[in-house]
């Protein structure tokens, strides 16, 4: 029984958020890591996915939940396209500020317009119970195991497709725009089309992740769940994991999910009873310190460290 509960804890508090954050991190990595367009609107695009999935599944209860997730992604992609238009004219920090506007505008919209929450007085959206192949995957009765398998399936499919995308024509055109936009144009890469495609596909991933966030992880949510903090969290995952790496998106998400758990448990193991408030403060400090440490020591992130480790192990015991 204890074992079972520990398993539930791991699924609910670690593995499910890890998989969902990975999905969002893949999305942001396509846009920022591959196409070089910095975005702080991830939380907003995830909110679009979450609210779109809620509206769709309550308006069309017969619709399969997997289809709902896909459509939520498509809607988020369309919103992403709209907010990607300024990227033709503005770059770098200025574009980041424009995407920040998207973040605040979208959250404001979902707070302001009660239609999005089906006029719920509490302002929260709640995942209704839905099944896939006879197994309950959303709603209060869905087991953590079922939700875990659903999230795992989606992120594996997402990662595979993303990997295919970046190794062919489209991925190369994104990297060309990132590395040298003038040279990209001269070989026939159309800047607006390429950047918008990156915004659209990135937002699709974020939208699906947002829908999963509500339906597979939180169960119910308000706009607070999608605030600017979430945008930064996903950006940290991408930076720590490795810009321009699909594997890095997973590593970054795992790092961000695991570090707070690790920091909470270490004092316990060392028999150092700390007040909870102090523990929270220490957690934040260590977290910030680690991010700065990573940015200085290994700007290419965990994915690069993993690559180096593999190389070293292959050559071991020889130095080269």
């Amino acid at each position, binding site marked *: 029984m204890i074992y079972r509960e520990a398993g539930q804890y791991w699924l609910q508090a670690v593995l499910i958020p890890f998989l969902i954050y990975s999905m969002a991190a893949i999305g942001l990595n396509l846009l920022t890591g591959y196409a070089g367009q910095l975005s702080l609107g991830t939380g907003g695009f995830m909110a679009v996915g979450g609210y779109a999935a809620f509206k769709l599944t309550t308006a069309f209860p017969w619709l399969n939940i997997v289809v709902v997730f896909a459509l939520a992604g498509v809607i988020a992609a369309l919103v992403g396209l709209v907010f990607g238009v300024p990227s033709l004219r503005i770059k770098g920090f200025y574009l980041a500020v424009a995407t920040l506007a998207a973040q605040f505008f979208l959250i404001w919209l979902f707070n302001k317009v009660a239609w999005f929450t089906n006029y719920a007085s509490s302002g929260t959206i709640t995942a209704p119970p839905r099944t896939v192949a006879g197994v309950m995957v959303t709603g209060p009765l869905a087991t953590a195991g079922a939700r875990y398998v659903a999230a795992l399936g989606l992120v594996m499919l997402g990662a595979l*497709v993303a990997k*295919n*995308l970046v*190794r*062919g*024509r*489209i991925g*190369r*055109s994104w*990297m*060309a725009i990132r*590395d*040298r936009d*003038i*040279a*990209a*144009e*001269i*070989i*026939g*890469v*159309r*800047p607006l089309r390429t950047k918008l*495609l990156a915004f659209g*596909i990135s937002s699709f991933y974020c939208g699906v992740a947002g829908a999963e966030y509500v339906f597979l992880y939180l169960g119910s949510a308000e706009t607070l769940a999608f605030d600017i903090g979430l945008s930064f969290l996903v950006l940290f995952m991408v930076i720590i994991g490795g810009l321009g790496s699909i594997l890095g998106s997973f590593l970054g998400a795992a790092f961000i999910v695991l570090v707070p758990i690790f920091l909470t448990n270490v004092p316990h193991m060392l028999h150092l009873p700390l007040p909870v408030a102090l523990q929270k403060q220490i957690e934040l400090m260590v977290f910030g310190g680690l991010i700065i440490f990573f940015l200085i020591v290994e700007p290419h992130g965990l994915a690069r460290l993993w690559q180096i480790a593999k190389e070293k192990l292959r050559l071991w015991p020889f130095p080269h």
Partner: protein
Amino acid sequence: MSALVEIREVSKAFGGVQAVTRVSLDVTKGEIVSVIGPNGAGKTTVLNMVSGFYHPDTGRIALEGRDVTDLAPSRIAELGVARTFQNIALFRGMTVLDNLMLGRHVHMKSGVLSSFLYWGLAQKEEVRHRRRVEDIIDFLKIQDLRTRPTGSLAYGLQKRVELGRALALDPKVLLLDEPMGGMNQEEKEDMARFILDVNEEWGTTIILIEHDMGVVMDISDRVAVLDMGQKIAEGTPDEVRANPAVIKAYLGEPKASAKEARRG
């Protein structure tokens, strides 16, 4: 036969500076035409107008009889114009192979959905274009550099890879901005050989800007001379060499000798 590239009376000013004034130039299919002139004569500006980076204030540019004056650079690339830059614009973080594959971009069609699935259409397309890229790699003798990031290559090799990327587009017209700038004698000879071979093997029309007069006179069918934004002479290398206006522009009048010394 009408010209492949027609430049008609183009002018371009940047603020108060008149960079190019009513320059015309016709380039016939299969020709190698050099544009020469002192620094600041407006050579690169003309090239930038042909490739669509600048749009002329007045005048027209046509490619195969089609007006391309106001098209974006990417559209002009799709019509078969490739170029290299004076100060190399490779994708430095990417490998030589990826740079050349990017040169194939305008010929590749696979969209989002076929890329999602990859195995099948997109992969077939990838393999087909890779074959063409391998031809170019063999042609430029850069076989051992395939997986090297271009940023780590020696300067002369970067120039060569940039030429390769332009060739990967299978261009009708190749614009080369100082392809031999900063090279040693041996590298210059290699590059000159490549340019001649491209012209002979694929019949590619070439417009180049170059400062090394020896090379220009050796490989060009025709030479156009710009000075102070105006075309002051055009003709075969021998005609241009004998033209008094050209000699004046290059050597200057006695009074201008101090200015010439600064130009080096």
